[in-house]
């Protein structure tokens, strides 16, 4: 199992097996702190507590000092040992002291108990399989399946959900027998008693309207952000920043430039097609910050080569098109830095997605008007081309509940396009399951602002299952550690305690905008538009990836095994290539899933 994880930890490997219980934990390591002394798994002085750990504990210097004052003796400088001693002090409550991205396993030999934990936001993965009182866990699904090859089968419901969301919603996986430990959860296992799982952290949920003095709020957020950057800059290896030209990464770079003792290195990625290029904005920011700036262009020939490699190796399928450029910039940066800071999570925590504001407005309009008035207003608005897009969009989506409107918005209405594309293996599914699963994950709206509720949904669903899968897998594939600055407990708790109106003021993500140093980010022509993550997938599917897609249709597992309908998808591909129609919203997830499924079935991409 450890060998399969090699790319996640190229520098070292270790296994501890407990002879009495038959429990063993293993680890592979990417050396970032205490490069020589951080061998894992690691135990306390008398070998009664063993820990294997994946990730990074940013506040480990403080914790180490506190523990040392309490008489603990440290053999290494790494963060794994901090876990061991913290566990000795506090048992499972220790997780509350940790600031970082992590999953870890602790074997308590005396209590004969295994503790597994996952960080607050789900930055690091943890897969579980239980059978007959035994528990198997790994930070990769692939390596877990290596040990239990007979689990290697696809769950039709998970494939269905994947097609709708373009990611596999947790805590399930694509494989029926394997699940994930949800973010902010811990699990204890004892022989004979099995598993006990509980949540140890969730973002605060009940903000009330409050007149916060904006000035002091911004000051507080800035302080927390500086702390987040400062602690994430600590490494025994070079650290850089991924700069997209958007607000979030610009803010991260600005604070990092302030907090860093050496000249900052920034990295950005651009394309040779599609007319969308953020590299110029990133270059201007880098220039203003005086960073050592690197620009990589993901060219079309490279896309053809990279897509099969990356999309098939995401551990679970992932239809997020930004995985490709992220992998490209990570690979480019890796010889220069081992750690990079990124701005992920800001949109979910601080209300950055425009749909939050639009759907909230739509809900208010809907709530305020009687049905017939809504209908005729909708008719008028549809004819009034000059009106704001928000109003028109809200009318178009008006009759559906907020949850479904949001879903259709983020998933490009894929759930309505399933039927003709599905093959016999998916055809028999209950097509409402996706919605009911989502609804149960979302909880009750309870009359609160729709935007707040959607932000929470994204924090629990989209963030860990899409955004963080992308950042973790794409960067770890090239053994680079990507640290998300905004995913900081204090910042998240502050963000969660604020009135939604504070977040959505102006063009949204008001606090992030307010923290940005003035004059750093060049004005966008035509006002603010969120284009930072626009990836030219449509062009790629017409160009460099057209042969890959054809190859998929001809021999891909998805079509050979009857998951999707070859003819229907073929027509979609044909239309996308020949006419101006953009079907990339459907074709990209299909391509990602297809490449992944081929590898899953032991077929290496050509």
């Amino acid at each position, binding site marked *: 199992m450890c060998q399969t994880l090699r790319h996640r930890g190229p520098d070292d490997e270790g296994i501890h097996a407990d002879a009495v219980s038959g429990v063993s934990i293993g680890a592979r390591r990417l050396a970032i702190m205490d490069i020589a002394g951080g061998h894992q798994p690691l135990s306390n002085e008398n070998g009664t507590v063993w820990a294997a750990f994946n990730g990074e504990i940013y506040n480990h210097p403080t914790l180490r000092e506190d523990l040392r004052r*309490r008489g603990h003796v440290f053999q290494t400088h790494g963060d794994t040992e901090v876990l061991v001693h913290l566990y000795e*002090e506090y*048992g499972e409550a220790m997780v509350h002291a940790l600031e970082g991205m992590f999953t870890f396993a602790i074997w308590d030999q005396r209590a004969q108990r295994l503790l597994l934990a996952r960080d607050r936001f789900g930055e690091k993965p943890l897969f579980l399989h239980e059978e007959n009182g035994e528990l198997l866990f790994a930070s990769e699904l692939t390596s877990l399946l290596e040990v239990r090859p007979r689990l290697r089968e696809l769950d039709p419901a998970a494939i269905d959900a994947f097609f709708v969301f373009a990611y596999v919603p947790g805590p399930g996986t694509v494989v029926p027998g394997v699940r994930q430990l949800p973010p902010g959860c811990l699990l204890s296992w004892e022989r004979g008693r099995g598993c006990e799982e509980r949540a*140890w952290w969730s973002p*605060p949920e009940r*903000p009330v309207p409050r007149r916060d003095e904006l000035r*002091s709020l911004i*000051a507080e957020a800035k302080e927390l952000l500086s702390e987040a950057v400062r602690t994430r800059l600590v490494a025994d290896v070079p650290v850089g920043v991924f700069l997209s030209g958007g607000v979030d990464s610009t803010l991260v770079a600005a604070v990092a430039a302030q907090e860093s003792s050496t000249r900052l290195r920034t990295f950005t990625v651009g394309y040779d097609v599609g007319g969308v290029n953020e590299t110029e904005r990133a270059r201007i920011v880098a220039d203003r910050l005086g960073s050592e700036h690197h620009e990589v262009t993901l060219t079309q020939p490279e896309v053809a080569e990279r897509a099969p490699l990356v999309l098939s190796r995401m551990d679970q399928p992932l239809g997020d098109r930004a995985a490709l450029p992220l992998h490209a910039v990570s690979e480019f940066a890796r010889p220069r830095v081992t750690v990079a800071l990124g701005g992920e999570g800001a949109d979910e925590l601080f209300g950055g997605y425009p749909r939050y504001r639009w759907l909230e407005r739509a809900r208010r309009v809907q709530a305020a008007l009687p049905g017939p008035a809504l209908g005729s207003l909708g008719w008028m608005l549809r004819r009034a081309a000059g009106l704001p897009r928000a109003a028109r969009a809200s009318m178009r989506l008006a009759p559906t509940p907020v949850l479904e409107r949001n879903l259709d918005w983020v998933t490009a209405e894929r759930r309505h396009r399933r039927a003709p594309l599905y093959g016999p293996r998916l055809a028999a599914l209950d097509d409402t399951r996706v919605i009911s699963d989502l609804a149960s994950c979302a909880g009750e709206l309870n009359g609160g602002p729709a935007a707040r509720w959607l932000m929470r949904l994204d924090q629990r669903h989209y963030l860990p299952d899409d955004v963080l899968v992308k950042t973790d897998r794409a960067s770890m594939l090239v053994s680079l550690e990507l640290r998300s600055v905004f995913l900081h407990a204090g910042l998240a708790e502050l963000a969660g305690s604020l009135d939604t109106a504070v977040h959505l003021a102006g063009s949204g993500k008001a606090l992030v905008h307010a923290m940005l140093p003035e004059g750093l980010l060049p004005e966008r022509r035509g006002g603010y538009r969120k284009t930072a993550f626009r990836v030219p997938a449509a062009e790629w599917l017409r160009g460099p990836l057209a042969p890959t897609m054809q190859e998929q249709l001809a021999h891909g597992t998805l079509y050979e095994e009857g998951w999707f309908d070859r003819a229907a998808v073929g027509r979609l591909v044909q239309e996308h290539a020949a006419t101006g129609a953009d079907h990339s919203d459907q074709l990209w997830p299909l391509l990602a899933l297809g490449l992944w499924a081929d590898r899953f079935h032991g077929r290496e991409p050509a």
Partner: protein
Amino acid sequence: MVASRPEPGGRSGGRPRLLLLTPDYPPSPGGIQVVSHRLAAALAGFETTVLAPASAGAAEFDAHSGVRTLRVASPGALPGPARIGLLNAAALARASMLRPQLTLSMHIVMSPAAAAIARATGARAVQYFHAEEIGARPRLAAFAASNATASIVVSEYTAGLVREASARHGKQPGTLHVIGNGTDVPEDHAPFSDEPGRATILTVGRIEERYKGHDAMLRALPLVLAKVPEAQWVVVGDGSLRPSLEALAKGLGVDHAVRFLGAVSDEERNLWLRRARLVAMPSRLPAGGFAGEGFGIVYLEAGAYGKPVVAGNVGGALDAVSDGETGLLVDPTDPLALAEAIVRLLRDSELAGRLGANGRANALAHTWPHVAERVEAVLLGALDRSKTG
């Protein structure tokens, strides 16, 4: 201590007339309210008149407060700045009739009136400084300090804030006298235990400012509970941050060990001070140059009840709590350090007892009569200067 009482220039008999100006006065709750009232009541050497805003229940309170109090009513929904402007104008108008020899402004927002009265009547001005208001309005603070004959600051931390604000705005502050806040010391402070088996950690204070560290307490609580499962955190006080703290408690899975009591009567609060094993308020320095805890009366109150305290090792708490003597000072941003200090006091009853006893002795030296005596000396000094200068 007070050697002579100067007779007001040319006027016969009686004590010097003092006009105490305050925007915060009981029955509304809060620290400045308490200081204002307790001083007004205890300044025996002066003929004191208090000028304060009207509030619900004020007439009832004033009838029994033993202090001559003038209330300024402001029409319903006036915004804060307008109410303060009105209060200042009223102060000036009243002063022209009262002809005080001295004004004591309890908050810098009253300093414009104090300055105007000084100009109009020659009355000397003494200015009180707490902390938060200096960070929020450094320019006004500098103005207030430079216009006052003397200033009273509640801690060295506050003195530093005044000097910093003055330097930044090119003003020269008058003499700064550090006089900490006071407390009442109850005769009966015996521990009260009607919940055997529960170890109560108490926090008292309004829940309006993040810097008071309620959130830090919540982050430390799971660690405390890991070592002292019978611990509970009782929070006396209300404020707009309370719902989000309740949500945070839930998010951290510690809501079963937290009790938000809201605003309670003095009797009930005192009962909790007797029930508690320790009082914790890990105030931190707020971000962005804003000022934090100036003194923290609650630390002194804990001592009055013989309770050890856990406080942040910054700001006014450094004056109010002596580390290892009356309490434990910790880095208020480090949940582990905070948890450890609390656990130490919960587990080590000998230590808790010793710190509590020291706290009680300290409180006895800082009762309101003591504080009033020192304030009176500053006021008389200011009058003296008015005679000679």
